[in-house]
């Protein structure tokens, strides 16, 4: 394909050719990257800086006529001394830990079983994956319906297997059960995610390692603990990282499912923050709250990623 530009380029010395051929690689690189960086700066970084600024003020969106004052670190003091914030942190931790434990256990088991390559495993894997493709808000909303003791399905299914009276317990009304109600719904939705990652991990283990172990007459049990688990560990840790970040941010599913109740039992930090920021409109205060959350999530993620890299290097 010979067009005039190409022909000219071939006849001219290199630097000139570079110009005629178009922009330099460096310029192209910038043209290609700049829009992305710009958009991220505009929608992520600029607002973040704004949040930090607001966190030192008493600004309130719903009082446009009030003067905005600098209050220094008062917002931060108020938040860190508020026992309610610690209780939302506890609720978040309970949710985070148990969803991860259950999803890893069930997800890994499923992946392990699917990896036995029985007939039709593709079809069943696809079916198992469906729940995680739904909108979490819609899932949360519908689970309130499933959890209704009189008209919902959940209690009747449990009753069918245990013989208990379906109306004898209430998943979202009982203080002791509500934290588990959100764990169950989230586990239902996101176990497939962990399963998929584990499956990738298991499939990445070369058969030859097992063959070698078999020659050494290592038992299946020993093979599982000395080969399967260590080799799949980086994948498991990755799954934990992604679920951890997602569930630290959790809002939609839980707010629809319990509204944070009963009392404050399932009020996760995001739900609490939403109340402060968009219902009480304490903008300055909730900006400080948001900053504390950023720091927490980045801090935890950074530590975790370091650990993950160590495992990978091993």
């Amino acid at each position, binding site marked *: *394909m*010979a067009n005039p530009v190409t022909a000219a380029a071939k006849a001219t010395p290199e630097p000139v050719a570079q110009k005629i051929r*178009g*922009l330099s*690689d460096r310029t*192209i*690189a910038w043209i*290609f*990257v700049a*829009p*992305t*960086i710009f*958009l991220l700066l505009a*929608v*992520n970084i*600029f*607002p*973040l800086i*704004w*949040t930090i600024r607001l966190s030192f003020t008493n600004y309130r969106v719903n009082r446009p006529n009030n003067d905005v004052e600098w209050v220094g670190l008062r917002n931060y003091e108020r938040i860190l001394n508020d026992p309610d914030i610690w209780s939302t942190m506890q609720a978040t931790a309970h949710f985070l830990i148990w969803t991860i434990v259950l999803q890893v256990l069930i997800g890994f088991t499923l992946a392990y*079983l*699917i990896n*036995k390559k*029985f*007939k*039709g*495993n593709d079809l*069943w894997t*696809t079916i*198992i*994956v469906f729940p995680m493709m*739904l909108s*979490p*808000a*819609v899932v949360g*909303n*519908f*689970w309130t319906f499933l959890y209704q003791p009189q008209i*919902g*399905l959940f209690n*009747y299914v449990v009753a069918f297997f245990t013989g208990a009276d379906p109306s004898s317990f209430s998943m979202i009304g009982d203080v002791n059960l509500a934290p588990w109600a959100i764990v169950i719904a989230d586990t*239902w939705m996101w176990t497939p*995610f962990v399963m*998929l*990652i584990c499956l990738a991990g298991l499939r990445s283990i070369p058969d030859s390692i*097992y*063959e070698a172990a078999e020659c050494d007459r290592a038992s299946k049990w020993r093979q599982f603990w000395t080969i399967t688990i260590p080799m799949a560990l980086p994948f498991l840790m*990755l799954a934990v990282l*992604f679920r951890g*970040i997602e569930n630290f941010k959790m*809002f939609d599913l839980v707010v629809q499912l319990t509204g944070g109740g009963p009392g404050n039992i399932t009020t996760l930090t*995001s739900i609490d923050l*939403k109340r402060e*920021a968009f219902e009480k409109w304490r*903008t300055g205060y*909730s*900006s400080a709250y*948001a900053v504390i959350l950023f720091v927490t*999530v980045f801090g935890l*993620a950074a530590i975790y990623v370091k650990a993950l890299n160590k495992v990978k290097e091993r």
Partner: protein
Amino acid sequence: MSFSVTEPTNRTKWFAGIAVVLYAVITIIPLLWIIATGFKSPEDAIAYPPKVVFEPSVEGYVNLFTSRTRVNEDAMAELPPAETWYEELVREKGQTISGPSRYGERFLNSVIIGFGSTILCMVLGTAAAYAFSRFRVPLKDDLLFFILSTRMMPPIAVAIPIFLMFRNLGLNDTHLGMILLYTAVNLSLSVWLLKGFIDEIPVEYEEAALIDGYTRFQAFYKVVLPQAATGIASTAIFCLIFAWNEYAFAVLLTSGTAQTAPPFIPTIIGVGGKDWPAVAAGATIFLVPVMVFTILLRKHLLRGITFGAVRK
């Protein structure tokens, strides 16, 4: 096929198969229950105890797309005869149709915002990913980490300043605002994924093209893009699914004009109480596109949901 020590025995396969099928059946029940509720009458949907066997009805779907008013018998008698089958169905319940519901609009908003942001995200993401993959970009690793970290922020926390910024720019409750926002949120995913896909395309192809006299731009769109097409398509679908299902930003930043379906569906109410069949019908229709994508995407699922960290 030769005998392999790693091939599971038939008994193991049977056991694994039964366990997995059992889990699949249990896990699919809530989903089937949603779909079934969409075909119940409002009375059957809240039946006490719940009905597993019921007479199918399309009332939920009719109610989903219409808004209705209750009329008393005298006024009903004066109305002209119903023109359509759905009008007839509504009249049987002592109501008349007063107009279409908002569901159509909300669904359309989801389509506009979902596809708009996906297209924009693909254009920006492919370009950036190409640059990161092929050129020496200063501070490349830092920039990549920065792009990834934007995804860690809780949406509610970021929403405060975005809300203020959008309000000042007049972007609150607009399609453009939501498209830009979702594009920004999705860029991290698409840059990471696409960089992985482009890394896999041998540089030699482009070098050959450059030697043939192609410019960088030409090499990019005539050689790299076609090679990366599958990767771009699967990345696009992941961006679409995120924008499709997103709730937190949508509920805070949209209301009358640009509201998408997820914040709308849970709030559907009927005449006199919550209309569960209509909610279920709305959820089912909303689910269909994503379900189709899931089936199409089977092979790329893993890579997409892990930011390309896991390659299959």
